[in-house]
């Protein structure tokens, strides 16, 4: 029997008049892993922030190890033994791994000078207990995102945390790194740490969590034992309705080849990348993070230079030197990083939607035709089902799903012939995910070429008709997606 670590009683929280959490009660036992799931805006992050001392609840009690606690700031929660590993990593990139772990708690002599050997030794021991091999002397900026996440977890462990909260820990990780993270979670459980994590990926939820906590509209809808439920039940609890098909049907027929990339090469990034795209199909680019998919896509779009390679669209060889050329030819690329490379966050929805096609809205004497802009943006807000139905809202205030829809709208507005979408549903809730998948299929049926880059294999398998597998910068295999399994793809994605 596990001991109870944390108990929430009737926690409520409102921002202005908006009730974000409504009387939530739950218990957390040591040595178990809890997955918190729900659509964006369900209150998951707010609940975690209350546990971690970042927000204070309006009503309700938190008991930690049987004692009522009221954390005034995150520091107090950390000292009590509750750490949050945030989605946005917070390591100082120019300091070593060890320094980041023991940030401001470095072992020092009486005068405050850091004892370097002891510092590195401690970090090394910590990694040994976690079963990871990271050089504590390496600068954090040199680590991959996945490794940085592990450093963050090590930091939480070094603080003797009894409860570790992870906010979408796997959203930016490659498959290999995800496996590694699972193993670390298992070690944490053995050490009687309670792990709570927010996730949008149900596959991983079922794989590592003992309990699944479902939130919807600020209410606790379900607190389920993983063994006693199934995927469909969880999804219907999350959305409050049944989503029968997460993925739309496959292509209705096979069209002719109309877009091809031949011998695309960039020294040290990718080599001799060739593939063709047929009408009416969705082509998937699968592979591990860093296999060269995004880099190749960016080169096709003209965002990065390439050393060699030709791009042929509808029989015409394209000379693309920059994104402007690409957009003019009808090649569009939807970035994986919508916040920094995709959207103008503090601008209105309206201008985000027309941002890639401003040329179409210029009237006489070079002035913008705002009436046309408005009509067009409202059309897309409606078409994409962006909520709220408002094209004057600032994009920064929207949920991830709606932001992603806005980004898709921006590129549809540019009338693409070929649309490359990079991680189209990263950090997006299930409802919006299904909608985006359906839209992509619809585009393909309408004759627009759709290329999907995704690190989520279920997405690639569910959505694409053919799959180009990348491995270490080369195309290792092009597969017809007929009853393929994840293992078959992974076989070609790894050496």
């Amino acid at each position, binding site marked *: 029997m596990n001991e109870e670590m944390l108990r929430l009683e009737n926690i409520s929280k409102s921002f202005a008049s908006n009730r974000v959490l409504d009387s939530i009660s739950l218990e957390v036992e040591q040595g178990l892993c809890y997955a918190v799931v729900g659509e964006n805006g369900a209150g998951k992050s707010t609940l975690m922030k209350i546990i971690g001392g970042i927000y204070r609840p309006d009503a309700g009690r938190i008991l930690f190890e049987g004692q009522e606690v009221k954390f005034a700031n*995150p*520091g107090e929660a*950390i000292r009590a033994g509750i750490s949050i590993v945030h989605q946005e990593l*917070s*390591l*100082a*990139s*120019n*300091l070593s791994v060890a*320094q980041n772990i023991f*940030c*401001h*708690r*470095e072992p*020092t002599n009486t*005068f*405050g*000078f*850091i004892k*370097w050997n002891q510092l590195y030794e401690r970090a090394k021991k910590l990694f040994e207990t976690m079963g*990871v*091999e*990271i*050089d504590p002397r*390496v600068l954090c900026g*040199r*680590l*991959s995102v*996945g*490794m940085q996440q592990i450093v963050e977890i090590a930091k939480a462990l070094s603080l003797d945390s009894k409860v570790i909260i992870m906010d979408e820990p796997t959203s930016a990780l490659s498959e290999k*790194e995800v496996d*590694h993270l699972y193993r670390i979670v298992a070690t944490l459980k053995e050490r009687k740490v309670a792990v709570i994590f927010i996730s949008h990926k149900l596959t991983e939820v079922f794989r590592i969590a003992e309990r699944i906590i479902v939130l919807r509209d600020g209410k606790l809808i379900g607190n389920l034992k993983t063994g006693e439920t199934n995927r469909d039940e969880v999804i219907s609890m999350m959305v409050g309705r049944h989503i029968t098909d997460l993925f739309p049907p496959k292509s209705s027929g096979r069209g002719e080849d109309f877009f091809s990339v031949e011998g695309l090469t960039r020294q*040290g990034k990718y080599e001799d990348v060739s593939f063709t795209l047929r009408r009416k199909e969705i082509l998937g680019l699968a592979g591990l993070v860093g296999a060269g998919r995004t880099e190749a896509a960016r080169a096709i779009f003209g965002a990065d230079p390439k050393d060699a390679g030709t791009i042929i669209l509808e029989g015409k060889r394209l000379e693309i030197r920059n994104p402007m050329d690409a957009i003019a030819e009808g090649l569009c690329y939807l970035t994986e990083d919508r916040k920094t490379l995709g959207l103008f966050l503090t601008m209105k929805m309206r201008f985000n939607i027309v941002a890639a096609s401003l040329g179409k809205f210029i009237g006489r004497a070079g002035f913008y035709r705002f009436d046309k802009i408005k009509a067009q943006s409202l059309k897309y807000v409606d078409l994409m089902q962006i909520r709220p139905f408002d094209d004057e809202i600032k994009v920064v205030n929207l949920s991830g799903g709606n932001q992603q829809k806005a980004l898709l709208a921006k590129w549809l507005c540019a009338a693409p012939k070929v649309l490359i979408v990079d991680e189209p549903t990263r950090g997006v809730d299930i409802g919006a995910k299904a909608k985006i998948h359906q839209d992509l299929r619809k585009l393909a049926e309408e004759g627009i070429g759709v290329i999907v880059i995704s690190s989520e294999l279920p997405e690639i398998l569910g959505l694409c008709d053919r799959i180009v597998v990348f491995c270490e910068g080369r195309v290792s295999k092009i597969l017809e997606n007929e009853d393929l399994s994840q293992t078959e793809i992974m076989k070609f994605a790894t050496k």
Partner: protein
Amino acid sequence: MDYSRVEKEGGFYPAVVKPVLRRIGIQNACLIALILIMFISLSITVPYFFSAGNIEVLFMGFIFEAIMALGMTLVIIAGGIDLSVSAVLPFSAIVVAYFFKANVPVPAAIALTFLIAAGIGLFNAWMSNTLRVHPFIATLATMLTVRGLALAISNGENVTSDFPKGFSFLGQGKVLGLPFPIFLFIVLAVVLGFLLKHHRFFQQVYFIGDNPKAAKMSGIKVEAFMSFVFILSAVLACTAGILTASRFENASNSYGINSELRVITAVVIGGTSIVKGGTGTIFGTVLGIIFMSIVYNAFVMAGINPYYETIVIGTILLGAVFMVEFFKEKELNLK
């Protein structure tokens, strides 16, 4: 399993220089090379450039900026900027001169001036911490205000009389054969450089500069440390002001005009990033200072029309930045 990014063998740099580059960093190595090239070519082409007399002149020509650059390095690593140093310098010179006029003893006059300068630093910190004014605006406002204050106090005139005997040592005396300002600078640079590298308190600056929110979450008192940094910068500017007054036995409003830009230039050439906090070293700043000192001196010694001076410095700054970017890319192949 080791995910640390291991770069491919071979690459841009010959194997022999790699350990050296790894130790001192590519940017610093470039600067050292550039300094050596300039130094050697000037020694050959310009008469009397390489003479004990000129080397002293060379370093004294930039020494007040050098002292301020030490504080500025910390401010910029922490993600801030301090434009007010160029006003604190003449202000401190005038204030200390007025204390002497009022017959305050030398140590007390200096201590009081330091206290006032620290107050200015604290005011900068307060504006940036509490009022959340961007340090660029906050210290710009302070610069204008303090410069105005200095003009008002002195009525726009130089304060020359009543400098006590013994005060002149600070600007004109020698220790171990070195002019006192240079000696002081070396001591400050060594101490501050060591502390920044090895002391827990000073190490906070890198966490704060890289990500102030995360630093706060890790239990670092960000506001308190920023106050310390701004005070340090103001106190060092005050030191430069007092030394200037002592050197010329005169306190003038014309001191330090535009020096904030020269100071920032030296710091940036030394590899401290103004774009993103969290990078930079005192060693780099010292190299930046030596570089700037040579450039300024070269003009005087070569007898070039001083009108060309800023053109060349601007060009060199741009060149240095480009060079650093170029080599930084290559650095990936190094580790």
